[in-house]
């Protein structure tokens, strides 16, 4: 009951909160940000090497040098309140570090996009220690921690849980990433040129993005479900009606009245997630 009261209060606070503040806006690109950590295989068997691509932004960084460290470990229980860190874990594996490596691929004029310095992560078999066959079929999280640091000391730490499972099993297949192939405007054509008026944009999904899959229950039975895809609309300029949209819903976008300085583009960067670790993004520079 107490938890429900907390949930109700939290929901109302988020939904009805009426304090006026000058807090930074989540979708506004500017500061040093990690926008996504995309594993080429969001779910895989032990022993698989998964490559993780960081999607980064440092729009206001003026091209400052960026470095990163990376490590991984068995999930200490982040979903149940444990701190998302591998420090102190017996299964900690330092992938890049302690000396940081340079981030590559985040270049002028927008300093936003996918880093070419991807990180390989080997999924260990030890992640299955003290787990049942059903837990292994459902999937066990393997924690990947990525720390991004700018030359002036600004930093962002991000993490991702790569699902390690024995799929395919019980007829269920491993999860795949969704994809975005284009940003469409209201008339169904690609939005590649900055408009002067408000437009309604949708993220065109690649085939099979919203998977229909068999979810394995705690007793080993399966239930068929369909993914709900949520798109987050990051923008460098202008404004949007909603931060996020569900599935193929459109978002209203009001372009800026003037172009950004220093030859920088107006960037719209939707990131789509399937709620099971699958991610994809699309960058449109206007």
């Amino acid at each position, binding site marked *: 009951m107490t938890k*429900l009261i907390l949930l109700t209060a939290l929901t109302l606070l988020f939904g009805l909160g*009426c304090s006026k503040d000058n807090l930074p806006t989540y979708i506004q690109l500017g500061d040093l940000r990690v926008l996504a950590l995309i594993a080429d295989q969001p779910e895989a068997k032990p022993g698989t090497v998964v490559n993780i691509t960081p999607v980064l932004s440092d729009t206001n960084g003026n091209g400052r040098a960026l470095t990163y460290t990376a490590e991984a470990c068995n999930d200490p229980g982040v979903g149940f309140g444990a701190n998302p860190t591998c420090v102190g874990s017996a299964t900690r594996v330092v992938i890049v570090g302690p000396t940081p490596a340079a981030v590559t691929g985040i270049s002028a004029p927008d300093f936003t996009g996918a880093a070419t310095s991807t990180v390989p992560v080997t999924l260990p078999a030890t992640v299955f220690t003290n787990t049942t066959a059903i837990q292994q079929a459902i999937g066990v999280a393997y924690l990947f921690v990525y720390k991004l640091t700018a030359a002036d000391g600004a930093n962002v730490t991000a993490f991702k849980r790569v699902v390690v499972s024995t799929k395919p099993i019980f007829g269920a297949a491993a999860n795949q990433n969704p994809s975005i192939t284009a940003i469409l405007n209201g008339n169904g054509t690609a939005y590649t040129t900055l408009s002067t008026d408000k437009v309604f944009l949708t993220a065109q999904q690649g085939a099979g993005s919203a998977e229909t899959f068999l979810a394995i229950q705690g007793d080993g039975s399966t239930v068929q479900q369909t993914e709900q895809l*949520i798109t987050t609309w990051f923008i460098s300029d202008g404004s949007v009606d909603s931060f996020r949209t*569900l599935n193929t819903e459109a978002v209203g976008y009001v372009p800026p009245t003037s172009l950004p300085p220093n030859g920088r583009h107006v960037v719209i960067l939707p990131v789509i997630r399937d709620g099971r670790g699958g991610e994809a993004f699309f960058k449109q520079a206007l």
Partner: protein
Amino acid sequence: MRIDLSCRSRIVLLGLVFWLVGMAWAGPASAVTISGQLLERGTKTPLPSVNIYLLPDKRKIITDLEGKFTVENVSPGPFSWVVNLAGYEKLEKKDVADQGGGKARQLYLEKSSYQIYETTIYGKAGKRDDSSRTLKASEFMTVPGARGDPVKAVQNLPGVARPNGFSSQVIIEGSAPQDTRYWIDGHEVPIIFHFGGLTSVLTPESIDRVEYLAAGYGPEYGRALGGQVGVWTRTPKKDRLQGFAFMDIFNAGGLLEGPVGEKGSFLISARQSYIGAVLRRALKNNSSLNFTVAPQFSDTTAIYETELTPRDHFKLVAVGSRDQLEFLFTQPVKQDPSIRGKFNNVTAFYRLIPEWTHKHSESTRSRFSLGFGRDWVRFDAGSDYFYLSEYVVSSRGEVETQVSSFWKSYAGFDNRYVWSGVDLQIPSYNTAGGIGSPLSTGTLQAAHVYKRSDQLGFYLRNVLHQPHSHWTFLPGGRVDYYNDTGETIPVPRLGLRYDVDDYLNLRLAGGMYSQRPQDQETDSTFGNPDVKSSRATHIALTAEKDFREGSSDGFVLSGGPFYKYLYKLVVPSSNLVVRNGATIPENFANTGSGRVLGGEALLKMNFKPWTGWLSYTASRSTRTDQNGTNYLFRYDQTNVLTAIASLDLPRNWKISGRFRYTTGNPITPVTSGTFDADADVYVPNRGPFYSDRLGAFYQLDVRFDKKWIYDKWILSFYLDIQNLTNHQNPEVVRFAYNYQSSTTVNDLPILPTFGIKGEF
């Protein structure tokens, strides 16, 4: 002989004849009998044993027990009624005694004041627990900020911390809100306040008293580490059919009560809110949030009471309550993508409580009551849900015996049996340090749970007092059985009282207390089936001095220190454990402990037309978590000060005010966040738990009451202005998405509310 009369003489003679005949018909002086009833103006309450004078005859009559009177041999013609009764305005009313007396008179006597003020009743008649305070509901209706609710008014008592924002939880002496148990007529209920803490689930006018049990409370009640807040319904009035209807900006309702036969009486009341319509209007321009069912609450209370025999008394109480809120987030909310779609919350319950009291002899009586009911909680948030349905049967019995001239004993039991079914699918929610992680970072958990839980307690309370002795000993104890943890826990309780004189006493109360884990804490999916009950030891010392020494005006001062040691507390655990060969989250463990040390004082003043009180509590409440780290408890408030004053004014005006000051609640600092790339949110990186505090809370509330008294009904109006100075009281810290900056969400700004009530 011939008598020759003139015409004029004949007319005079005829008139004389008519007069003589008339006199013969009328008899001597035509005395008149007049009957009637003397009633209180507005309430129509009969006024017994009151002297009524008739002028100019200088006759005196006395009303009977029903306020009725009969006056015989009243001289025909005009006269005056005169009534002069202490506490009432003088009545002088002209009347005319007609032949035959005319119809029965109704004389209405207007009280000097219809405004009433709150009082606290201590340790005198009818109270046996020296740790308790009893608030008479009828005298507690007009405290500013309490919205006419005596249960809400408990928050003005010393030892009670100020709850957050819209919450009305009663946080007792450094304990957690869930450590307070709520009951109606001795039977536990799932909630005592409606949505947002606006009002309690009973119509205030159906409440006789609210009982507040704090540190060192007696053995009649248990299963709560902090204390108890109990509501006792009242006996419906038997004198006549009466009632009222009211409306304010939140809700409207009414109450009807009256006699049933010669020995019985009934009461029925109902309320329905319309706050949702107000909110819907306020949010009509918010395109991302649609109310599909506006927040609303309703409740019904029904009471029947009768005397079965001179030794047997029966009472039946039915209480029902329902709260519902439903809205739609048309898009995922900014802060957390998992909060989206339909949000629906229904909380409802009903209880049927029959009670039988039997007087075995002058020295022995017994009470037995049952509680039948159902509870429903339905919570939908997008694709997540929690459905609870449970049947509850509770029972309570007690035998009270005057064993000897110095020994009185109370032996009893209470039992609560619950069949519950829960269907749920919700993410785990981490609130370590009072900072909630976004729901989307939690692991989704689903379960269907069917459970039976039985809580059984036996208690014995003794009062040992030799006549003329200064000392009173109150040894007792109870044994509690919890079937879900398999525990049988004996807990001793002891009270000691020393009466220095009639106006000064010292009281010591202490004991051990247990509280079973909450259902989700013992659940195999969401909790830990191995957790056991939490325990506590209380001790409290109170001194009370009545400076009035028999007069009605003056001061009463009480207060003293209290201490609680809490151990085996069930606290959240983020550890992973291996159970039945699988690695699973431990969720909860009995590894918490805590200490509370404080002192409280209450100064009550009565100097008519001024009344008021000043309550103050200083305390420090700490907790130790599973890692041995000691920190302030999240509800710790070092200083809590409440001052209430009231002034009765002529013409049934009253003005009252309340000022509150509390230290800000401890908060956990957060200076950064870690980006969860799967959930698209940041997870807070918490600093030392509760090592910072919110700003202090100040608030001044003012209330104006006015009553218009008519012969047969009363019209009341109130204007209650909360936060008159519009002080910005920080309530919650709101963080930027990455937790690198923050702002505060403030409590309510200046908030005027008003209402009217018509009673007959």
